[in-house]
């Protein structure tokens, strides 16, 4: 009772303040919290989106764990993510270092150019890349033919090369984003440290690995979490490249998000099952974020 009175009292006392912040909370409630809770709720049902809902407990989750395509999609997604992170991390760091150390002019121009892929429509990018990786008329195969190599069916064949195209696109997109964040971080590192290192005769690579990287740890952690989420959300690039929800030959380009979409709402209308997939992806993102935080974030504070 007392709690209730206090609540009412507080609501009245701070009503103006609450009214001011209300728009955010109402929108967040409607578009943020509600879908999250509704999705969890749905994942315990079998529902076609129109008819009646049938409670089936954890059956969706059990079926999911026994679904070979789910594991294939997970394997593809993680493989693409891990390989792509090598150029994303190293490329981002090196580019940021080059720009920061004033080795080149036109810092802002480069920043803008490298950041561009992040804000360009994925569909437009993918159409360009599909042409680069084309089998009969692709630019890449043309270059190969100059060296006397036969055309490679990047997007067909046995499906294993689709991932190459996806990795290139994924890395290309995220390098610029990481670079901009790292650059901001590097500018926060005192110039004295760089100067001291240089006076001591440290090479550029030595400075990057022994000074910049340790000092940037929290920032690297942030970008890692961001691009990990990006990895799990990977959809448009493989979808447009392979022209369908199966991910091409032998499901070579099938990612988790495509797998989700193939159950609902695009390939079918198994909304309960699709919600279960969404929750499994969420749990994986949370686990990976926690691990990253634990391993990298500890000595930061």
């Amino acid at each position, binding site marked *: 009772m007392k709690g209730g009175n206090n*609540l009412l009292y507080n609501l009245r006392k701070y009503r103006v303040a609450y009214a001011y912040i209300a728009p955010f909370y109402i929108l967040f409630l409607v578009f943020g919290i509600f879908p999250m809770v509704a999705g969890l709720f749905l994942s315990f049902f079998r529902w*076609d*989106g*129109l*008819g009646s809902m049938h409670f089936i407990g954890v059956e969706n989750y059990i079926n999911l764990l026994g679904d070979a*395509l789910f594991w294939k999609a997970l394997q593809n997604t993680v493989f693409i993510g891990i390989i792509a992170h090598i150029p994303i991390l190293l490329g981002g760091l090196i580019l940021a270092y080059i720009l920061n150390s004033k080795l080149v002019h036109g810092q802002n121009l480069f920043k803008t150019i490298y950041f561009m892929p992040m804000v360009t429509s994925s569909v437009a990018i993918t159409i360009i890349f599909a042409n680069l990786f084309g*089998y009969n008329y692709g630019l890449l195969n043309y270059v190969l033919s100059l060296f006397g190599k036969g055309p490679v069916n990047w*997007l067909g*064949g046995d499906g294993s090369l689709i991932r190459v195209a996806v990795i290139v696109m994924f890395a290309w997109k995220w390098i610029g984003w990481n670079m901009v964040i790292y650059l901001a971080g590097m500018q926060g590192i005192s110039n004295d440290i760089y100067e001291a290192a240089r006076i001591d005769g440290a090479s550029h690579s030595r400075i990057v690995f022994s000074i910049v990287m340790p000092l940037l740890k929290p920032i690297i952690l942030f970008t890692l979490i961001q691009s990990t989420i990006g990895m799990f959300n990977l959809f448009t690039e493989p979808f447009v490249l392979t022209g369908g929800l199966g991910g091409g030959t032998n499901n070579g380009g099938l990612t988790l998000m495509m797998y989700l979409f193939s159950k609902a709402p695009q390939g079918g209308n198994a909304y309960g*099952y699709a919600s279960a997939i969404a929750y499994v992806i969420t749990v994986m993102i949370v686990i990976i974020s926690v691990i990253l935080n634990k391993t990298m974030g500890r000595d930061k504070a």
Partner: protein
Amino acid sequence: MKKKLQKIVSVLLITGMCASMVTGCGSKAAQATTEEAGKEIAAAVDADPASIKAHIEVGGWPSGDDGFKAAMEGFNAIYPNIEVELVFTDTTSHHQALQTALAAGEGAPDVAMVEGAYIAQYRNSTALTDLNLLGAQDLKNDFGAFKWEQAVSDDGTRLVAIPWDLGPTLYYYRTDVFEEVGLPTDPEEVAELMKTWDGVLEVAEKVSIPGQRWFLPSAAYPYQWMFINRDYYDEKLNLVLEREGDLECIDACLKIRENGWDMDIDMWSGEAYAAYAAGTCVSVAAGSWFSGFLKTDIDPDGAGHWGATVLPGGMPATNWGGSFLVIPEQSENKEAAWAFVKYMLATAEGQNAMFKAVDYFPAYEPAWTAAPELYTDPDPYFGGQSPNAIAAKIAAEVPTVYNTIMDTTAEGYIYSSFNAGAEAGETPEQIRERLGSDIEAACAELKQQQIQTLKDAGVWQE
């Protein structure tokens, strides 16, 4: 104090949310049209068209809107007081928005387009008006049975949509290339020549120049044409892949692949589109709506070097897609909505006006005889041939099939399973087997969903 307040606020928020979810689901079942109400609507539409005053929203995807615009004048001449607002977006977004609006019980347009591949998801839905109550059963004989049956609920009682257009499957080929290599270009002669797989391979060999010109976008497609009615599952939901002549078909496909007579790419890719226009990909098959694609999008300057005929390899008549119109139960203007659907889809005037504008081949058969010239006149784009006349003949032969929600997923696998099998050097039997297991794996959950839907409809027997 503050902690406590936070706790209480969050409890309240969650309770409120659950409550709104429960009520949201509860209010979903919109007021179903009763038999009397249906009769009243039907009578009003027929008796006194001018008395219907309403503003209706019609939703769909391009180029349906251009079709409606072309027929709007005729519609408003009969129904002067119905104002139509077109709400159009791309196909995928349209279906997602429609699905959401139907589930929510509000926000759907008064009339909505539904694509053929999606109709199996809607046929049992009570969120759509039973058009039989509005007198649609009287129109049944004017439409091809195979298309009409797709919109009938599984228990056979309700009709949720009226068919708009058909997609009789045609084989499109470059007449200029055929002529260059000494092959006939007349549709009948081409059909005769390619009736057997040996004939198909002969043509493939003649038109192809390895690395420069190809017979097809992918050797997988002739196998896909066998299933283009989307009849993968029978009514017991058993996957049925055996077809008459299917192994011979796969065998021919493999030979096309081995000899490098196909481009080995997706027929809808930018690369394939460029090759159709350049004449380096010599043939492709699709629903007759592909004529419109060629004219407006793929090869606008290609008049005179395309031909179209029936599918090769002695394959039966098939239909590739085509859309429907539905009236959501939540519509408050059912009279005007029904008047619109009836005029657009079930009058020769409406259908033919749209056919002329956007090449949507009418599912309404009386339209074919009402303006025969539209269907038989030589088409300058096709060098004076008439693909529509062939399409009309095919349409009359398409069998009635059983469609399910698994169809689109199954269809996607023919291309990739064939490619995987060909890459692994498999025999036709092995490729068919591989396709079967790939489809079963990908459709496992959708099949459970379909069984549940059939159970809810009371027509599923274990």
